[in-house]
């Protein structure tokens, strides 16, 4: 038997790694993948709690999170393609026309 806290610690570690990738990477697609990693870590926490309390509500919510992440990935990648075509680069530091 695996204690629930082990799953929660793993979820926290993955979330932290996703945050580190989000802050330190410069390619917009890699940043988007870090967002997906954070969503996955949260899904793991949801399922762990759902099985710990014996109710399936957490798993239903995981299905919703997966659906919303898929919709967000579709629209987000569309925006990324347009921005990359416009600025001719995938580096987030190049999208700085509004800077002072």
């Amino acid at each position: 038997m695996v204690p629930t806290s082990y799953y929660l610690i793993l979820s926290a570690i993955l979330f932290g790694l996703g945050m580190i990738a989000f802050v330190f990477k410069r390619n917009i697609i890699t940043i988007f993948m870090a967002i997906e990693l954070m969503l996955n870590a949260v899904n793991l926490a949801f399922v762990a709690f759902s099985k710990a309390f014996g109710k399936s509500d957490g798993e239903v919510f995981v299905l919703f999170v997966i659906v919303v992440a898929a919709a967000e990935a579709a629209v987000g990648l569309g925006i990324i393609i347009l921005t990359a075509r416009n600025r001719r680069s995938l580096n987030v530091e190049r999208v700085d026309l509004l800077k002072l």
Partner: protein
Amino acid sequence: MNASLAIFFVLAAVAVAAAVSLILQRHPIHSALSLIVVMVALAGLYLLMGAEFVAAVQIIVYGGAVMVLFVFVIMLLNAGEEEHTSFSKLAGYAGIPMAVAVAGLIAAAITRSTLPPAQDPTALTSTRSLSMLLFQDFVYPFELTSFLILVAILGAIVLAQREGN
């Protein structure tokens, strides 16, 4: 150390290693492949907890559709390797120890709290009970998500049109 614990440690190590590889890789396609490994490892962990439908949906939707979208975009945009810019010393030498300290604090707080006991891998969630919940208690959010997907499809089609069409 029983079998469940051993399998948990193996899958957790694979997931963490793949997540670290996502950060350390230079080319986005390798980061995408590492993220696919993370998702498959997480699906294995869901199976270990007994949530079999969620594990299957994770692989089919996340690993088989969302990540394929990422891989397609990386291939189409011909994303090259990341350029080499200077790494802020403050972030490196002060940030990472602080992040580890915060993580340790959270881990200590979790293990000291009174959580329900351990997961039982043999308590499978039947798809029937999950679908009862989804279509009876959560039918309103379910219909809203279908509407959300329709809006996302329309948005993606509008974004994909070239100017002047």
